[in-house]
C-alpha cells in the first residue's frame, strides 16, 4: 500500500501540468503513468497551441473573447460557453509560462512567440515550435517536473513509470485512491490518495484507422466509467482530414495553415465546390474538411480512387524545411514521398475524442476528490468539433486547474488517510480479477476481437453515420463484449506480461466503444463531427444537450444534460 496526497494518473501534458499545479499549491504529487512520461501521446502533437497573443501582424486585434467565440462556433455550439471563455482567457498565461520555463517556440522577427493560421480561427493565433509543438511542450513540462522533483526538500513530486491503474476506488461518493499494476513486476498494489486526477488521454485505438499512439486505448476513461463517473459527448469523434495514406500518421493542419492545398485526382482544389468550405477552403474546421474529402472520394475523384493529395510543392523547399521539417521527414520515412517533389497522399482518420470523463469547469467530477483533464476529460470546451490548436491548450489550462483544485480540496479535508480500508478491500478483489484474466483459459483470440472492433467502429460510427449502420455496429460491439468474456490468454507470467496489458486495454476499449455507439444512435441530428445521413440538420430543439453515459449493470445508459449558453446565440456554421 502506498500513500500520497494527490495522485496524478497519466503523464502527458495534462497530467504533468496538473502535478506541477499540485506542487504550486504546496502539496505532494505522485505521477503514475503506463509509459515513461516522455513517451506519452502529447509528444506527437505537431501544429501548435492557440492563444490570443496578438503577435502576428494580422492578429493584433485578436482577443481571448474572439478566440472563445471561434471555439464555440467551431464546436457547433455544443461547448459550454463559460468553459470556452475560461480556457481562452487563461491561454496567454499558460503559453507565456511555458515560454518562461524554456519552451522553444518559433519566433517572429521581433523575437516574440510566432503564430500561424489554423482552421476555424479568425486570426493567426496558433503558437508553434516548427512542426513539433507537442514534443517541445512535453519536454518542457517534464523538465520542470524534474526540477520540482530534484529541488524540493519535501520531495514534492514522485514518479511511478510503467504502472497501469485498473480500478478507481470510490467509497460513499468520495474518491479514496486506486488499484494499480506495476507492469514491470506484475505486482498489484493499492495507492491511497486524498485526491486523484486523471489525465489519461484519448480513445483512438478503438478505430482501425487512427492517428493516435498505439497506447491510446480509452483505458483511463473506462476505469472512471466503471467506478460510476459518467462519460460525456462520446459520440463526437474527430476525424483529422490529413493523415498519411496507409499508416494514418498525422500530417499537421499546419501544412494547410502554411498554405498547402488539398487536390483531387484531377489536380483541382475541390473544397471550392462545397458551400460550407468554399470561403475558408483548406482552413475550414476539421469536421467540414474531412466530410468534403470523403464526399470527393465517394464521388470517384480520389487519387487512384482511394486518397487525396496534400500538395505543398508551391510553398518551396525553403519554407517546407523551415516550417514543416518533421512532416517532410515522416512523409519520406513512412510513405517514401518527398513533399518538395511530390504531393503527400492523405485520407481522413480518427484523431481526437471530444468527449470524455464528465467534469465541470473546475475539472471536478461527480465523485468528490476525483478530477480529470485533457483529452480524457470533457469539460466541455470542444463540443461537437474541436478546433486545431485547442487540444494542447486544453491540456495545460485544465491540467493546471485540476492540480490547483485537487490541492485545495486536500486543504479542506478534515481528516486524512480515511480511504485506506476501502483501497485495501479493492486490492483484494482486483487481484482476483487480474489473476483470472492472466490465467484465462477461454477460446476467443483477443487480436481477432480487436480487429473486428476497429472495423465495426470504422464502418458504423465513422464520418457518415445512419441508424442502420450504427445499429449494426452496436450489435457487433455487444457481441464482441460477450466474446471477450471467453478470452484466451497464453502467457502466465506476472511481470511484463504484454498479453495481460493488451487484454486489459481491450476490455476498456470495448466498453467505451459501446458508449460511443449508443451516443451516436441516440443523437438523431447532425452536429460537428457527428453527421447523420438520416438526420442531416442540426436540431437545437431536441439536441442542444450533452450526452451523458453511465455504466449500469454492465451496459451504457444514455441521458442528456444542458449546455451552458448565455454569451452567443447558436447560428448556422459557415466558413
Amino acid at each position: 500500500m502506498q500513500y500520497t496526497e494527490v495522485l496524478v494518473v497519466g503523464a502527458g501534458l495534462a497530467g504533468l501540468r496538473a502535478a506541477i499545479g499540485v506542487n504550486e499549491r504546496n502539496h505532494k504529487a505522485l505521477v503514475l503513468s503506463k509509459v515513461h512520461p516522455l513517451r506519452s501521446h502529447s509528444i506527437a502533437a505537431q501544429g501548435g497551441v492557440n492563444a490570443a497573443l496578438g503577435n502576428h501582424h494580422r492578429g493584433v486585434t485578436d482577443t481571448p473573447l474572439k478566440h472563445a467565440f471561434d471555439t464555440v462556433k467551431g464546436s457547433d455550439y455544443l461547448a459550454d460557453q463559460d468553459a470556452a471563455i475560461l480556457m481562452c482567457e487563461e491561454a496567454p498565461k499558460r503559453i507565456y509560462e511555458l515560454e518562461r520555463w524554456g519552451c522553444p517556440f518559433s519566433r517572429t522577427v521581433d523575437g516574440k512567440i510566432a503564430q500561424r493560421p489554423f482552421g476555424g480561427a479568425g486570426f493567426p493565433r496558433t503558437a508553434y515550435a516548427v512542426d513539433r509543438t507537442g514534443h517541445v511542450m512535453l519536454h518542457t513540462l517534464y523538465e520542470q517536473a524534474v526540477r520540482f522533483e530534484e529541488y524540493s526538500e519535501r520531495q514534492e513530486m514522485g514518479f511511478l513509470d510503467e504502472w497501469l491503474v485498473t480500478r478507481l476506488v470510490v467509497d460513499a461518493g468520495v474518491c479514496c485512491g486506486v488499484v494499480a499494476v506495476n507492469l514491470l513486476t506484475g505486482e498489484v498494489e493499492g495507492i491511497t490518495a486524498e485526491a486523484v486526477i486523471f489525465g489519461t488521454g484519448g480513445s483512438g485505438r478503438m478505430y482501425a484507422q487512427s492517428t493516435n499512439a498505439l497506447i491510446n486505448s480509452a483505458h483511463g476513461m473506462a476505469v472512471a466509467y466503471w467506478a460510476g463517473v459518467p462519460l460525456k459527448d462520446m459520440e463526437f469523434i474527430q476525424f483529422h482530414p490529413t493523415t498519411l495514406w496507409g499508416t494514418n500518421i498525422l500530417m499537421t493542419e499546419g501544412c494547410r495553415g502554411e498554405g498547402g492545398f488539398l487536390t483531387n485526382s484531377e489536380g483541382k482544389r475541390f473544397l471550392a465546390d462545397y458551400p460550407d468550405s468554399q470561403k475558408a477552403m483548406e482552413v475550414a474546421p476539421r469536421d467540414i474538411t474531412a466530410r468534403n474529402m470523403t464526399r470527393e472520394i465517394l464521388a470517384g475523384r480520389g487519387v487512384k480512387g482511394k486518397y487525396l493529395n496534400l500538395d505543398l510543392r508551391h510553398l518551396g523547399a525553403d519554407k517546407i524545411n523551415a516550417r514543416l521539417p518533421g512532416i517532410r521527414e515522416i512523409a519520406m520515412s513512412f510513405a517514401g514521398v518527398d513533399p518538395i517533389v511530390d504531393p503527400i497522399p492523405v485520407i481522413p482518420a480518427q484523431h481526437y475524442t471530444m468527449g470524455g470523463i464528465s467534469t465541470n469547469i473546475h475539472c471536478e467530477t461527480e465523485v468528490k476528490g476525483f478530477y480529470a483533464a485533457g483529452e480524457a476529460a470533457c469539460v466541455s470546451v470542444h463540443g461537437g468539433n474541436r478546433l486545431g490548436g485547442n487540444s494542447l491548450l486544453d491540456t495545460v489550462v485544465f491540467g493546471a486547474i485540476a492540480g490547483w483544485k485537487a490541492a485545495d480540496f486536500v486543504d479542506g479535508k478534515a481528516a486524512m488517510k480515511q480511504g485506506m480500508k476501502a483501497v485495501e478491500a479493492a486490492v483484494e478483489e482486483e487481484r482476483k480479477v487480474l489473476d483470472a484474466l492472466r490465467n484465462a483459459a477461454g477460446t476467443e483470440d483477443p487480436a481477432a476481437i480487436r480487429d473486428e472492433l476497429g472495423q465495426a467502429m470504422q464502418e458504423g460510427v465513422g464520418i457518415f453515420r445512419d441508424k442502420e449502420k450504427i445499429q449494426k455496429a452496436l450489435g457487433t460491439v455487444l457481441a464482441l463484449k460477450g466474446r471477450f468474456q471467453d478470452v484466451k490468454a497464453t502467457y502466465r507470467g506476472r511481470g511484463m506480461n504484454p498479453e495481460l496489458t493488451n487484454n486489459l486495454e481491450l476490455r476498456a476499449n470495448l466498453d467505451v466503444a459501446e458508449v460511443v455507439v449508443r451516443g451516436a444512435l441516440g443523437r438523431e441530428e447532425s452536429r460537428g463531427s457527428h453527421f447523420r445521413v438520416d438526420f442531416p440538420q442540426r436540431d437545437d430543439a431536441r439536441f442542444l444537450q450533452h450526452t451523458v453515459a453511465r455504466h449500469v449493470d454492465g451496459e451504457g445508459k444514455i441521458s442528456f444534460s444542458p449546455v451552458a449558453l448565455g454569451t452567443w446565440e447558436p447560428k448556422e456554421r459557415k466558413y
Partner: protein
Amino acid sequence: MAATCRFSIFRHDAAADEAPRFQQYEVPYTEGLTVLGGLIHIQQRLDGSLAFRYSCRAGVCGSCAMHINGRYRLACETQVADCKLDVAVRPLGHLPIVRDLVVDMGRFWKHYQHIKPYLIPGTPPPAAGEYVQTPDDRARLDVIIDCILCASCYGACTTTAADPEFLGPAALAKANRFLVDSRDAATEERLELVSGDHGVWRCHQIFSCQQVCPKSINPPGSIADLRRAAIRHRLRRRAHPE
C-alpha cells in the same frame, strides 16, 4: 504463396534464464510493414510473452530504439523491406536487460537529470509576455531540441560500454541545448557538471552516436562545443580566482 519475412529476436528473462537465446518467427509480409509492426504481430498473434516497448509508431516518442540488423534504430521507422525481409533484433546496448527487448533505462535518465535539464534563467521573467529571443538565437536551438531521448546514441557509444558513469551523448547534447539557449544563464554551473571524470573529456569522438541518431543530431559537435566552453571557463577562473 503469401510473402513472409523472418524475425530473429533476442530473448532473455534476467530473473529466470541462465543465458539469452535467439528465437525465430515467421511473419506475413505486406508492403509497408515496419519492424515494430512485425514485433506487434508476433506479440499479439504468435507469442504473447514477447516484451518490448512502443507507443507512437511514428518516430517521435523514442520508445522503440533497438539494435536491428547491425545498427541502432527506431523499430517503428525501420521498413522490413529495407532489412531484405530478414530481421535480427537485439535490445539497446550498455543498459541492463530486464526481459527480451526491454532494458532498464534508469542510468540513462540519471545522466539526463545530472546536467540539470531545465531552463535556469539569469534574470527574472519579463513583467508581461515572453522573453525576447531573436530568430537567430532561436535558430541555435534547431535540431538539438529534436532529441527524443531514445538512447540509440547511448547504445552505440563505445565509452558508455567501458564507463557506465559516462554521461553519454544524449545528456551532453542536452546540456549544450541549454548552454546555447539565449534565455539560460547557468553556463558555469552546467560546465562544472559536464567536465568531471565522467563528462566531456571521456568522449573518444568516434561519432557512432551521430551515425545512429534518428533525428540527425550531432552529439560530438555538442561535446566539442562544451569542451571549448569548459576550457575558457577554467582559464577565466584561473585568471580571476574567487
